[in-house]
């Protein structure tokens, strides 16, 4: 029987499409069948979207957790290293705090990771797959891209202690100029350096013009090299006819204890939050004692349920009523015939409460008889 495509939800169609896409680029499916120990998540709390994790005690007394994240498990379990790169993708449910209801929710997530040797080609491939993934959801999307080293390169000039650095980064992240000026003055940052920080905060927009503005404030080699790297990647994406919907946003900064290189976030018009987020997290690999670099992204499928969609007016197209002395053989073939014609069919002795049908049929000895339209 053919699957009724129209009854599939956006997140379901996207999953099917993207699985095919990721497989064709040589990514292998990663399946998470076991529970991780809570300590894995506890030690990497800040890598997670929220610190809250559901825990339980296993039969042998170990404290386990329902996964709030898949990447950490992949990193922990993979054998990949710099000589032996692995490409993986996953479709899993994770358990975390819902931003909507502030309660625990099961959230479905899809993502991919390259672990091992991450070169410029890997960055290009992952960015183009991120763009294809967003496009599969809706052509009205924007992919915000940044590179951690641009801002961190500037921080090398400032020589701040950890706490001040974190506070200033937080101001840049929330595009909060006022707070940034206050924090900068308290940290005794020089006037001209503070004005550069304020400029970084507003460095947002289409790729070429933002890159030009960024070049104007690049004061050291790290910053300049970072911009060159971004430009090189962008140029290749343009030759692939991609990158038109890429915006640079240097105020986007992920956690510096986990991420280094390129980072990005994808937005769909009409959806309140980003639906895709990723970047290079080789710092975390090092922290976990792995000799490998890593790059990947996650797609938050649960966010897609907010996509505008035509509501389905009917539960079934055909409702068939029959009585006790019906010839069930004939009834079954009548049902099958209607399904073949592309209808969703329900047959019962009485109309189920609340069922919305398009046409009501009564099954008699002479076959189907239409009783009335609409309910």
């Amino acid at each position: 029987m053919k699957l009724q495509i129209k009854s599939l939800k956006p997140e379901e169609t996207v999953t099917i499409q993207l699985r095919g896409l990721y497989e064709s680029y040589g990514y292998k499916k990663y399946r998470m069948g076991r529970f991780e120990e809570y300590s894995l998540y506890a030690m990497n709390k800040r890598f997670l979207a929220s610190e809250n994790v559901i825990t339980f005690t296993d039969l042998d007394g170990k404290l386990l957790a329902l996964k709030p994240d898949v990447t950490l498990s992949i990193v922990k379990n993979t054998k990949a290293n710099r000589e032996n790169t692995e490409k993986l993708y996953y479709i899993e449910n994770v358990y975390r705090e819902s931003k909507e209801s502030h309660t625990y929710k099961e959230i479905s997530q899809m993502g991919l990771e390259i672990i091992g040797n991450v070169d410029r080609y890997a960055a290009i491939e992952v960015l183009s797959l991120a763009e294809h993934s967003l496009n599969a959801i809706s052509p009205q999307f924007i992919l915000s891209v940044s590179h951690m080293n641009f801002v961190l390169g500037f921080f090398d000039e400032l020589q701040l202690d950890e706490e001040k650095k974190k506070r200033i980064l937080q101001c840049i992240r929330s595009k909060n100029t006022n707070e940034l000026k206050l924090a900068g003055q308290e940290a005794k940052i020089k006037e001209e350096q503070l004005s550069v920080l304020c400029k970084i905060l507003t460095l947002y927009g289409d790729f070429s013009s933002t890159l030009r503005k960024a070049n104007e404030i690049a004061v050291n080699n790290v910053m300049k090299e970072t911009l060159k790297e971004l430009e090189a990647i962008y140029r290749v994406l343009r030759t692939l006819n991609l990158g038109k919907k890429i915006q640079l946003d240097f105020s986007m900064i992920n956690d510096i204890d986990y991420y280094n290189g390129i980072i990005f976030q994808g937005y769909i018009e009409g959806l309140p939050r980003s639906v895709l987020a990723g970047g290079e997290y080789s710092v975390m690999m090092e922290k976990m004692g792995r000799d490998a670099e890593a790059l990947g992204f996650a797609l938050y499928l649960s966010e897609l349920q907010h996509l505008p969609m035509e509501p389905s007016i009917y539960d079934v197209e055909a409702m068939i009523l029959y009585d006790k002395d019906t010839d069930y053989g004939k009834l079954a073939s009548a049902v099958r015939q209607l399904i073949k014609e592309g209808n969703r069919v329900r047959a019962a002795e009485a109309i189920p409460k609340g069922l919305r049908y398009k046409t009501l049929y009564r099954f008699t000895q002479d076959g189907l008889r239409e009783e009335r339209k609409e309910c």
Partner: protein
Amino acid sequence: MLNIALPKGRLGDQVYELLERIGYDCKSIYEENRKLVFENIENGVRYLLVKPSDVAIYVEHHAADIGIVGKDILLEHQPDVYELLDLNLGKCRMAVAAKNNYVEDKDRTLRVATKFVNIAKDYYAGMNRDIDIIKLNGSIELAPILGLSDVIVDIVESGNTIRENNLKIIDEFKQISARLIANKSSYIFKNEMIGQMVEKLQTMV
């Protein structure tokens, strides 16, 4: 079209007057009725009048693109939004107050009455002080007078209410004022419109 969540009340009126002066007027807002949505198609704005404490929720959930909200509410609820501008309106301070003759006993758990549970917790956690929070929704000043709490954490504007109730301010620890916030997705898709408004507002505040 830019959806703007305005807090109902005095602050909202002040903010609207400010926006009107820089070209985001919407005359129908002055009509005496119970409508909550007002729009002016010509200059592309739609105002939503909402409860002040709900502004951040509307913006975070994308029902409004931008909104004007007190810093107290941002500190208390930490919504996932961009904080673009300090409008320097509705200025006040977050303060700790107690009865005039109050002397703190540092060996005992401090009872704190407040509307701002998270702000109070953060403040005392920073001092390593053990506290019990008593969450109230209004008339906070009553709590120490009736012995319900030792101190209160609340916003103070002129300090008159505090004085008239025979209380004194022990510490002022945060400057509060109205902030312009934006939804993260709107900031990206309506970047030009929001950017223009911020630029014009910057010249006014």
